[in-house]
C-alpha cells in the first residue's frame, strides 16, 4: 500500500523484478549467481545505460530521439577514420564525439527554433547519420585499432572495466544534472509546461536544443565504447538500439508525455533487461522465447505503473 503510493513506484517495482529475477535465475541456472556473471551483466548493460541517460532527458522534456543508434555508428566511424589517418587517440576520440554531437545540435536546433516535430526530425537524422556512415565506409567496417584505444572498451581499472566505469560516472552525473541543477529543472518544466517556463523568462529553445546535444553526446560516447570493445567501427552498429533505450527509459518511470524523469529507474530498467537476456542465454532458451519474455516484462511493468497512476488520479481529481 505504501509502495503503491510512493513517488518512486516504478523504481521500486523494477527493483523487485530485479530481485525476483535474480532469485529465480539463481535456482534455474547454476552459472547465474557469481560475481563473474554479474560483472558480465554490468558490462553488457553499460552501453544501454549510457544511451538511456541521454534519452531520459529528451523524453522527460516531452521529446524523443530516434537517431541515437545512427549517431552511435557515425561517431564511431569518424573516430575510426581519424585514428586510421594517424591522429592521436585523444584527438580522434574528440573528433568522433564532436561529429556525433553536431548531429544532435542540428536536430536540437530544428526542433527548438523551427518547432519541428521531434519524432519526425530525429527520424530524419537517423537516416542521415546512418546514410553518412554507410557512404563514408562504403558499407564495410573499419577495424584494427591501437591497444590504448581498445582499452576504452575492455581495459580494466582495478576490478572493473572502463565501460562500466564510464556508465557509472555518466549515470551519477546525469542524476545530479536532472535533479539538482537548473538545467534538469528546466528539462522537467519543458516537458510539463513549456509556456509557463517561457513566461518565467527562460530561453526555452536554448534549453530544448541542448537536450538533443546531450543525447547525441551520450550516443557518441556509446559509439566510442562500442568501437573500442569490438575493435571495429561498423556502419550498421547500434541498429535499433533506440528502441531498447526508449523501452528502458519509459519502464524506469519517465513519462512519455514529459515532465517526469527518473535516472535511477532507467538504470534499473536497463539492468532488468540485461539480466533477462543474460539469464535466458545461460539457460539456453531459444531466441523466440527471449523476445517473448522481454516483451512481457515491459508490458507487465507498464500496466502496473499505469494502473497505479489511475488510482492516484482518482484520489486527487
Amino acid at each position: 500500500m505504501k509502495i503503491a503510493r510512493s513517488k518512486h513506484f516504478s523504481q521500486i517495482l523494477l527493483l523487485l523484478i530485479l530481485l525476483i529475477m535474480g532469485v529465480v535465475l539463481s535456482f534455474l541456472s547454476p552459472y547465474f549467481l557469481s560475481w563473474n556473471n554479474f560483472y558480465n551483466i554490468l558490462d553488457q548493460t553499460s552501453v544501454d545505460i549510457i544511451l538511456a541517460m541521454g534519452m531520459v532527458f529528451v523524453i522527460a522534456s516531452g521529446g524523443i530521439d530516434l537517431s541515437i543508434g545512427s549517431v552511435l555508428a557515425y561517431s564511431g566511424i569518424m573516430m575510426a577514420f581519424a585514428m586510421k589517418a594517424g591522429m592521436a587517440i585523444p584527438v580522434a576520440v574528440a573528433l568522433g564525439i564532436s561529429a556525433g554531437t553536431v548531429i544532435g545540435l542540428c536536430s536540437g536546433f530544428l526542433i527548438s527554433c523551427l518547432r519541428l516535430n521531434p519524432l519526425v526530425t530525429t527520424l530524419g537524422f537517423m537516416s542521415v547519420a546512418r546514410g553518412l556512415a554507410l557512404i563514408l565506409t562504403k558499407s564495410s567496417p573499419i577495424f584494427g585499432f591501437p591497444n590504448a584505444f581498445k582499452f576504452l572498451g575492455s581495459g580494466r581499472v582495478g576490478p572493473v572495466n572502463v565501460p562500466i566505469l564510464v556508465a557509472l560516472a555518466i549515470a551519477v552525473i546525469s542524476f545530479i544534472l536532472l535533479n539538482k541543477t537548473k538545467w534538469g529543472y528546466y528539462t522537467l518544466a519543458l516537458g510539463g509546461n513549456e509556456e509557463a517556463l517561457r513566461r518565467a523568462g527562460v530561453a526555452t529553445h536554448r534549453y530544448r536544443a541542448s537536450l538533443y546535444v546531450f543525447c547525441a553526446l551520450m550516443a557518441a560516447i556509446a559509439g566510442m565504447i562500442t568501437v573500442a570493445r569490438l575493435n571495429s567501427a561498423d556502419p550498421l552498429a547500434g541498429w535499433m538500439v533506440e528502441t531498447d533505450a526508449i523501452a528502458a527509459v519509459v519502464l524506469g518511470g519517465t513519462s512519455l508525455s514529459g515532465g517526469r524523469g527518473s535516472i535511477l529507474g532507467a538504470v534499473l530498467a536497463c539492468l532488468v533487461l540485461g539480466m533477462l537476456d543474460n539469464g535466458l542465454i545461460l539457460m539456453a532458451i531459444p531466441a523466440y522465447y527471449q523476445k517473448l519474455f522481454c516483451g512481457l516484462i515491459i508490458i507487465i511493468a507498464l500496466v502496473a505503473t499505469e494502473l497505479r497512476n489511475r488510482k492516484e488520479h482518482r484520489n486527487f481529481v
Partner: protein
Amino acid sequence: MKKKSLLVGLLVALSLFVLMGCGEKKDAADNKSGDVEAEDVVKNDAYTDLDRKILSALEPLPDKMEGVKIGVVFPTFSNPFYVAAKQGYEDAAASMGIKVDVVAGATEDDVEGQLNVFKTMLGKDYDAIIIVPITGMNLISGVVEANQKGIPIICSGTTLDKDAAAEAGAKIAAHMTYNFEEQGYVGAKYISKKIKAAGGEKAKVAVIEGLAGAFQGEGRRDGAIKAFKEEGMNIVSVQAGDWDRQKAYNIATNLIQANPDLKGICCANDTMALGVVEALKVAGKKDQVYVTGVDFLDEARQSLKAKELDGSVAMAPYITGKGNLTLALKVLQKHDISKQSYYSPIALITQENVNDYDDWK
C-alpha cells in the same frame, strides 16, 4: 588427419552444383555433405578457379550479344556483400559488352521498397532483369507484371516461395541460388574436425543464428546443427545474434559463463563471429573455442591472418555476377535450362589457406 579435415573443408567449399534432371535442393545438400573429395583444390588463385568453374557449369555458353540491356535488383547496398556483387556485375558486363544497371532498395528489410524499385525497373525496357529478392514473397507481384510484359526474370539468391508464386502465376526464367544450409554445414563441420583433431569428443558447441526468423540465418543454423549432430557434438545452445556484433559479443560472454568448457561457436555471419572473437579474447578463452562465420568480410580476412577467427565461409558475390549475366544471355538465346538448377559457389577459408584468397571478391 589434421590435413585431411582441412581439405574436406576446402572442397566442400568449392562446390558449384549443377544438378541435371530434377535439380532439387535437397539432393544438393546431401551431395556435398560428405563425399565431395576434390583434389583440385585452389592453390594460389582461388578466384580464377571459381570463375572457370561457374562458367563450365553454365555450358553450353551463350553467344556474345552486344548491346543487351540487363537490370539487376539487389536488396540493399548497405552491405559490403552487395557492393562487391555490384562490382562483379559491372566488370563482367563491361567484358561481355553488355549494359547493366544495378539498383537496390534502402535496407535489407525494406521489402516493399525493393518491390517498388523492381517495378520501376520494369518500366525501363530491359531485355532481362536479375532479381535478388529479400524474401521469397516480396517481389512476386513484380514478377507477374514482368511476365505480362514479356521480360524474362532471373532469380538469384533467395528463391521465390513455390506455392505463392504458383498461385500468383509468377514465372521465373532461371534460378541461381545460394545454399544457405550448406554454408552453415561447412563451418560447423570444420569446427568439429578441429575439435576432434585436438582430441576432443562430444565437445560442447553452440550456434548463433542471425535475426530470428531470417531466411539465410535459419538455413545456416540448420546446416550447422546438422553437421554438429553428424559429428556427435553436444549442442548446448542455439541463440539469435540479430546479425549484430555487440549482441553476439554478449551472447558469447554469457555462453562461456554457462559453459566454461565450450569448444566451438558456429556463427551465421562474420560480423557476429568477430564479435564472438572479441568476447573470447576478453574472457581469455580464444585458444579454447573455435569460431567460424560466413561472408569472408575483409575484417574476417584480417582476423584469420591474425590467427583469431578460425574459419569463414565465403560466397562469391563477385563471380556470381558473371554467372548470372551469362545465365541471362542463355535465357535470351532460348537455351533449354528448364531441367537445371544452378548454385553459386562457396569456399571455406581458414587460417591455413587465407593467404590464397587475397584477391577474393
